[in-house]
């Protein structure tokens, strides 16, 4: 989850998010280098006592400052396009979960084998146990097996919502009347938080998403328990 005064991304919990982190490091480093160079040139221009009024043009420097930015842009574009296509790949999922957005909660349906469905409401601040996170905890978490490709089908029952979990690198709009698909692999066991990312009314900030990745046996025990309770 996010921590106070955080500036960067949350730690990656899926291979796609790791790739996104590395690409962001690459692009940000290029941006820092260029900005430092430009700042240095500005300071040098402003603080020099030299003046020269007779240079009109120069072919060599024009070639350099056409070629170099073009090469830098290609070096940014190639990894970027690779990640773009990587994020869209269909990766033969082991499990399909439907996430439906409502005003103002999410409901999850695991219908591959049995009919398991439940709602996930935010835990109100006055009902939090010590150690729980304000505005992020939900009463029923979406439990998934770790290291398995999971397909999520996302839609909405009333207005636009958006299902987002930053540490998994997933965000997909929940559009009423439309079925959107996305997929992820949780690389490690843990609890991953996200919040609704499309304005949907009064409690838009109060419908969080909690994904809990557990080993497969724990997932099977959990789903049997949930089916008995239903």
């Amino acid at each position, binding site marked *: 989850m996010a921590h106070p005064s955080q500036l960067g991304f949350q730690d990656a919990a899926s291979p796609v998010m790791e790739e996104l982190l590395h690409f962001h490091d690459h692009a940000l480093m290029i941006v820092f280098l260029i900005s430092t160079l430009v700042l240095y040139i500005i300071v040098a221009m402003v603080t020099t006592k030299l003046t020269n009024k007779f240079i009109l043009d120069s072919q060599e420097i024009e070639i350099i400052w056409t070629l170099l930015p073009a090469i830098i842009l290609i070096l940014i574009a190639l990894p970027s396009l690779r990640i773009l*296509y*990587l994020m869209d*790949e*269909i990766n033969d999922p082991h499990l399909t979960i439907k996430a439906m957005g409502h005003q103002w909660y999410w409901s999850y349906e695991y219908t591959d084998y049995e009919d398991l469905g439940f709602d996930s409401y935010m835990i109100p601040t006055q009902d939090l146990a010590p150690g729980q996170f304000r505005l992020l905890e939900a009463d029923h978490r979406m439990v998934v097996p770790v290291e398995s490709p999971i397909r999520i089908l996302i839609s909405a029952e009333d207005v636009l919502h958006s299902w987002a979990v930053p540490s998994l690198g997933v965000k997909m709009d929940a559009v009423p009347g439309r079925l959107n698909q996305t997929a992820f692999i949780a690389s490690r066991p843990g609890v991953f938080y996200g919040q609704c990312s499309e304005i949907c009314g009064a409690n838009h900030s109060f419908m969080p998403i909690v994904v809990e990745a557990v080993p497969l046996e724990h997932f099977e025990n959990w789903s049997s328990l949930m089916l008995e309770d239903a």
Partner: protein
Amino acid sequence: CVQSRLTLHVRNDKMLAIVRKQLRNHPALIPLFFFIGGGAAMSLLYLARLGLRNPDVCWDRKNNPEPWNKLGPTDQYKFFAVNMDYSKLKKDRPDF
């Protein structure tokens, strides 16, 4: 800026001669033509590929009305496959 003043209001065949003369005096324009021209060519080629190969596009309403319903389980319709070998996928949907 060097070009625009000289190439406005001139016929097409004279434009090439004028550009060639400018290139001789300002060879720094060559990388510019190369990258801008290359970028424009790549964009147009990708748009053409999208228009002709994307299964979401329907050109012939009579003979091929809904091409998005004809996708096979091993079709790769995206331009680039990073990690996935689509020919290995199996079909697990019922026919209808």
